[in-house]
């Protein structure tokens, strides 16, 4: 078994990125993700990489755009208000079909909100976040180990599908310390013949671009992009099912909410209530299949979220309204307790 | 002897080359219209050209080649 080290979630993301071959990080300070930047600032110069504190989130994401254009693995990280600023750049990355990794360690909003954990950027991340028709691959870790593993996975998927992957964590996941193994098999980046690395006078010039003024052409580009998204849906959808085989009550939860919910499921089982948990690991693409299946045998699905009810819409869509779907939530930086979730399970079971 | 060649199709007829020519060699062809719908430049007095290249340097659409 590989050696484990005790790390904060934010640091695990940073070290995993380095393991994945990322040598360029651009960011701007914002709580509760600043440890990612601080870690990179220490490590990058020692391994011949680049850490640069940008003048803004907007500049940071555009520096990412530059490195991605040059064909290298690159990342930025931020928290909710900063991600809004990056929205423009993320849309341009999508329009130019550039691979990149963006980390969002969410905090409560809207506006400046607070600095405590939240999952209120679910809509923003799963629907794209910026202007235009596009998606990001959204990965939702639920442990420090997953913070690291999904960071590596994010780089690999970004390269594979030429799109932005987002690790969508929250303040708790970022600040939490757990033992983590950083012993990963990393798929190296593919050849990128489209990258703007200079023609060397050997080929026609490459163009990285999201502008397309001919509507017929722009339509084709959008359709082709969504055909690629279909492949992502088919090949990369990830989720965990816990005690779902005979479940009568299902919990839907991701990230920190899933950890809390797992405790509640265990307590419910002790009380003789057949509860189970479906934990989406990819929020986009959303795992429809386990919810569709659950709808055939559970009497209620409870969506546990740190927001006013965002993922619940996808749960309803996935279960095709064949079963009651309810919300159990806290917001503003508050986290539902296992007791709160257990109460919801007990109520649903009656 | 200087020689002028024009990428006539790309000329937008702005006339900047005409004005900058020290020998008044060029004119916008009054009786010709190119594919873009402009009166393109032509050498009205080619024998006067001294091959200084000013017209080509001034032309925003690099339509003039100057040889000497």
């Amino acid at each position, binding site marked *: 078994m590989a050696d484990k080290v005790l790390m904060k979630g934010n640091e695990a993301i940073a070290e995993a990125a380095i393991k994945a071959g990322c040598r360029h990080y651009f960011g701007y300070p914002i709580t509760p993700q600043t440890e990612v930047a601080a870690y990179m600032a220490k490590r990058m110069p020692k391994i011949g990489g680049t850490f640069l504190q940008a003048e803004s989130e907007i500049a940071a994401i555009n520096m990412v755009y530059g*490195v991605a254009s040059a064909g290298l693995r690159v990342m930025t990280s931020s928290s909710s208000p900063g991600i809004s600023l990056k929205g423009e750049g993320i849309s341009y990355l999508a329009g130019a079909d550039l691979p990149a990794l963006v980390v969002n360690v969410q905090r409560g909003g809207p506006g400046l909100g607070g600095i405590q954990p939240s999952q209120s950027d679910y809509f923003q991340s799963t629907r794209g976040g910026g202007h235009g028709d596009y998606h990001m691959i959204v990965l939702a870790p639920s442990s420090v180990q997953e913070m690291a593993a999904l960071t590596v996975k994010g780089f690999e998927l970004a390269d594979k599908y030429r799109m932005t992957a987002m690790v969508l964590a929250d303040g708790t996941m970022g600040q939490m310390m757990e033992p983590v193994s950083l012993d990963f098999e990393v798929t190296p980046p593919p050849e990128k013949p489209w990258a*703007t690395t200079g023609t060397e006078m050997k080929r026609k010039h490459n163009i990285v671009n999201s502008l397309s003024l001919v509507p017929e052409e722009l339509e084709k580009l959008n359709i082709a992009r969504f055909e690629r998204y279909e492949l992502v849906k088919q090949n990369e959808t990830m989720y965990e099912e816990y005690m779902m085989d005979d479940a009568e009550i299902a919990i839907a939860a991701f990230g920190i909410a899933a950890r809390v919910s797992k405790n509640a499921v265990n307590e419910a089982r002790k009380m003789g209530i057949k509860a189970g948990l479906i934990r989406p690991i990819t929020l986009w693409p959303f795992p429809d299949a386990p919810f569709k299946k659950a709808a055939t045998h559970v009497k209620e699905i409870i969506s546990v979220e740190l927001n006013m009810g965002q993922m619940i819409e996808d749960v309803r869509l996935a279960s095709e309204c064949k079963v009651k779907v309810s919300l159990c939530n806290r917001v503003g930086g508050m986290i539902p307790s296992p007791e709160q979730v257990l109460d919801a399970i007990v109520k649903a079971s009656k | 002897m200087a020689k002028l060649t024009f990428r006539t199709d790309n000329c937008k007829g702005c*006339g900047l080359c005409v004005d900058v020519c020290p020998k008044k060699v060029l004119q916008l062809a009054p009786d010709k219209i190119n594919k873009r719908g402009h009166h393109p430049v032509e050498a009205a007095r080619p024998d006067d050209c001294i091959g200084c290249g000013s017209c080509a340097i001034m032309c925003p659409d690099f339509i003039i080649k100057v040889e000497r």
Partner: protein
Amino acid sequence: MIVYDKPHALLDVPLHYCPGCLHGVVHKLVAEVIDELGIEGKTIGIAPVGCSVMAYDYFACDMIEAAHGRAPAVATGVKRADPSKVVFTYQGDGDLASIGMAETVHAAARNENITVIFINNAIYGMTGGQMAPTSLVGQVTQTSPYGRDPKLCGYPIRVCELLSELEGPEYLERVTVNSIPHIRAAKKAIKKAFMNQIEGKGFSLIEVVSSCPTNWGMTPQNALKWIEEKMLPYYPLGVYKDRSNGEVK
């Protein structure tokens, strides 16, 4: 002997610019410099939103289109990905001095080793002639229909002077391209800006006072005169910073 022909670093395609627009002249100068330095194969150009956003169809080197104002940040990424490459941005006044002012100032402050070609024609061309951060006091545009009123919207920004206050940048020069001698001087400046990057000296910005006959509402010929009579008194030509030579205007 060829006195002048299309530079190799420009593709043989028609430009979309209006008749008499000086963008083409500056494109040529950049391409001539790329040819003369033999760097086409390792040059990456970045053109953000503005009239020159489609420059990627014109230059023969690798090209990137960028979001409005963000070219210096994108260039920072490209250059840091591989410092052996030559990276230039080609930006207009709205792009560089309004929406992208932060990116401009900070790239200069970092002395980012890139070359910035800044076209100042005192107007937003692509969107049809709105007031730019460099529009002159009294200048009539679509969004200053009674003339730019400094009480309402302040004064035009002199970018070279502003950046010259920074410790960071290596080279700042303002040139124009409204006459043959000025074009020759502009080329010299642009060449120096590329040379500085190749020599690792850092951030060089060449501000080119240019024209927009269409949106200024005048003939190309009168636009050249307007540069001389109206623009240059407010935007004096010259070197504003040449750090390696200890020169600060």
